[in-house]
């Protein structure tokens, strides 16, 4: 059964969200109130303008704007001699909870960019998967009196009418804000679970402050949970090859501890490796992933958690099903992007603008100078 709610709900509510509501201090909404206010105030600035919706087509269905990617590092070749840790799946009643958040650019106005965010939390309850999906919430990112900047701690101006790196950073920061908020809610409101994040546990950049991630991990530990973060894409490499290839020929499930080698490469500040870094191959003939496990969890406990994950969740293709579902539910399809564009046009009086498309003007097969966007 799928339930759709538009009214404000809190963790006190029964049913599905009750899992997350245990021991939560006070009432807290599923989406941060300040983000909703920020969305409202940013969208109010665009009344009556024209906008150019993002183009989506049947031939361009992959429309995710970003993916977690760590920084590029070259790792010592000594790793090649390292033995992987064999994992014995443990089947028990462990609960697995996964969190993922997606953002997408949905269009441009004269002053900036329109984007949307959505968070999804998925857990396994009595043999079936349950989800709680929050959003989408939409934002108008501009440079004029940018209240987003102060809210998000950015000082650089955003250039108008351009999908600049700064705009991108604001979008990422909005996404991080929602992601960390949702992760914190899950960690603080559930006990004795295996909590899966998308990405790594590397923090310490302005976009991803270390103290916020630390507090999330602390909260999880206090509640007897262990946080595991899976990176779908990693730039860590050895001898020019991705480290994930190190386990290609190894039997599954297994882990390769590369924490020491990674740590050596990182300066002690400002970036912090809050998780112990492994390469994980959880399924035979499956993919391998970078796996970060909360550094404050003892190594034995970390390995046991992976064993329990391996026994309690589906790990076809080497990726936990709970996290896969969270990803599927949070990401936007082309159809949803058009729906959000229609929502924006209808609710904020935006008119669809015909704008010259430089790329199409220069390279389009028929040299069309203008397009209907």
């Amino acid at each position: 059964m799928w339930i759709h709610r538009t009214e404000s709900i809190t963790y006190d509510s029964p049913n599905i969200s009750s899992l997350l509501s245990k021991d939560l201090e006070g009432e807290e909404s599923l989406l941060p109130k300040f983000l909703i206010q920020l969305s409202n105030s940013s969208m109010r600035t665009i009344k009556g303008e024209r906008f150019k919706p993002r183009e989506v087509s049947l031939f361009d269905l992959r429309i995710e704007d970003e993916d977690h990617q760590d920084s590029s590092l070259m790792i010592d070749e000594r790793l090649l001699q390292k033995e992987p840790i064999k994992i014995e799946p443990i089947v028990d009643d462990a609960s697995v909870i996964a969190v993922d958040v997606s953002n997408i650019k949905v269009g441009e106005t004269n002053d900036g960019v329109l984007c949307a965010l959505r968070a999804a939390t998925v857990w396994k309850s009595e043999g079936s998967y349950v989800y709680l999906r929050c959003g989408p919430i939409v934002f108008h990112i501009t440079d004029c009196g940018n209240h987003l900047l102060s809210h998000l701690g950015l000082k650089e101006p955003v250039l108008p009418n351009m999908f600049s790196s700064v705009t991108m950073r604001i979008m990422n920061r909005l996404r991080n804000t929602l992601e960390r908020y949702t992760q914190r809610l899950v960690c603080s409101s559930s006990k004795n679970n295996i909590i899966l994040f998308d990405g790594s546990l590397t923090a310490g950049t302005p976009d991803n402050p270390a103290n916020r991630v630390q507090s999330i991990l602390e909260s999880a530990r206090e509640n007897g949970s262990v946080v595991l973060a899976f990176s779908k894409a990693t730039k860590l490499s050895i001898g020019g090859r991705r480290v994930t290839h190190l386990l290609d020929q190894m039997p599954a499930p297994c882990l390769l501890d590369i924490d020491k080698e990674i740590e050596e490469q990182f300066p002690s500040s400002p970036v912090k490796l809050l998780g112990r870094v492994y390469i994980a191959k959880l399924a035979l003939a499956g993919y391998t992933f970078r796996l970060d496990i909360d550094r404050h969890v003892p190594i034995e406990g970390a390995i046991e958690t992976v064993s329990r994950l391996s026994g309690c969740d589906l790990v076809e293709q080497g990726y936990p099903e709970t996290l896969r579902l969270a990803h599927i539910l949070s990401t936007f399809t082309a159809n949803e992007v058009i729906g959000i564009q229609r929502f924006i046009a209808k609710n904020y009086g935006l008119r669809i603008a015909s704008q010259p498309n430089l790329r199409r003007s220069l390279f389009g097969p028929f040299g069309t100078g203008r397009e209907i966007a």
Partner: protein
Amino acid sequence: MRLYKKEGDIIQLISFPDEQVEKGDYLLIEDQKVKKGLIVQVIDIQFANVPGMLEDILRDVMTEESIHGEDYDPFDVSSQITVLKDTRLIICKIRGMIDDGRISSSVSHLPSRISSKIIRFPIERAIEPQDKSRPIHFGTTKSRTELTLDAKVLDGRLNIITGKKGTGKSHLSKLLVLSLVDNKAPCVVLDVNGEYVNLSKNRSSSPETKRRIKVLMPGVNMKLTLAQVGLGTMLGVLLFALDLPGNSARVFSGIWRQLQDRNELTLTSLGAAIHSWNCHESVRDAIVSRYNTIAESGMFTDDPSEALDFEKMARELSGGEALIVNMKNQYSTMRRMTVEILLSKLTDLLMSWKMKAVFFFAEEAHLYLRETYWEDIVTRMRHIGIFTTFITNQPDTIKDSIYRQADNIFLFNFMNENDLETVSRAAKIDGESVKLIARDLPVHHCLIIGEAVKNFPLVVNIHPLNVETMGETRFFFKD
């Protein structure tokens, strides 16, 4: 609604679920800048091929079995996404053009995608004649307006009413008969199931109408003397209704002429003459067996006072009357004989200008109409004033050539592909429109194609009749 695509004479429109459009509706794509508009008719409604829809549905299908949950959507954005999933593609056929207020069937204009406005178009206004002094109230159109046409639209026309069983063909046919009679037109109905016989009786207990409906029962109140019938008609009966071989027919002609010369042309003397005629035994046997059939039919009499006065009948018909020839429970030979004689007599009356014209309604004509009459009806008989309406639930019993010459086709629902194929092949509009619209027509809804609607195919919900129609199917079980 927005204009999306034009391919040939097909226009595709994008429509949201809150915009109510149905098959058969007329729309005007109005390009106000050039003061021109395309008149299009909706022939199909499909889901729009929105980008990513397959991915969306697959995602739903893949997860709905294994996962359930809640959505917290504070801005209700998802409602717009849902709307998008139900966005429709309206397939329309171009039927004409409005240029500076004038409607024409030639289309030379491509409306603007950007500035065109799409509105409902009340096609009835373009169809209904200025002069409606002889009204036929057909029913209500999709836009819930009354469709009233002048009886002139049936005058001199060949019409076909077809559709599957129980959809309302006979109902429309009765409506046409009654409307024509109300407008003082003569009608003859070949009633195979005896369902027209009570047309003068109101369905309620209210008194009978003043409509002039006369019922003829062959062999009961439809009897003729041999002299009335004449040799030509009798030969037609013998050859085409009773399959008498040509040689025997020649012998029969000799017997008939001799009796006629002697002024002894009676049924009794004909029987005696056949038996005593000098001819080959096999010829005599053939003629005797046909004579017996004729004699036993009860349609012939030697008493002139019993015989039907065709000239009187013609006068009454000409004043506005429906003559119902009740052929219920008659065996096929009898039906064929009846029709042979009736058509022959009507032809005589029309040729001699004793009648101006007659509207001829033939239900399931393949049951009694001989092969050669089909072409005759649409060519020669039409010119002398027999304006036929064929009513059938088996469209393939009517030849393609008849369809092609039909001025109006009143098409009710068909589900069967073969039936749709038959009608679509020969109808005056494209086969695609016929198939797509007729398949979804509800009971008593009819797609009118042809001259009556100035070649703008129109879906009409036919008015109910307040008369005893008796055409409904009899049921054993009660509700």
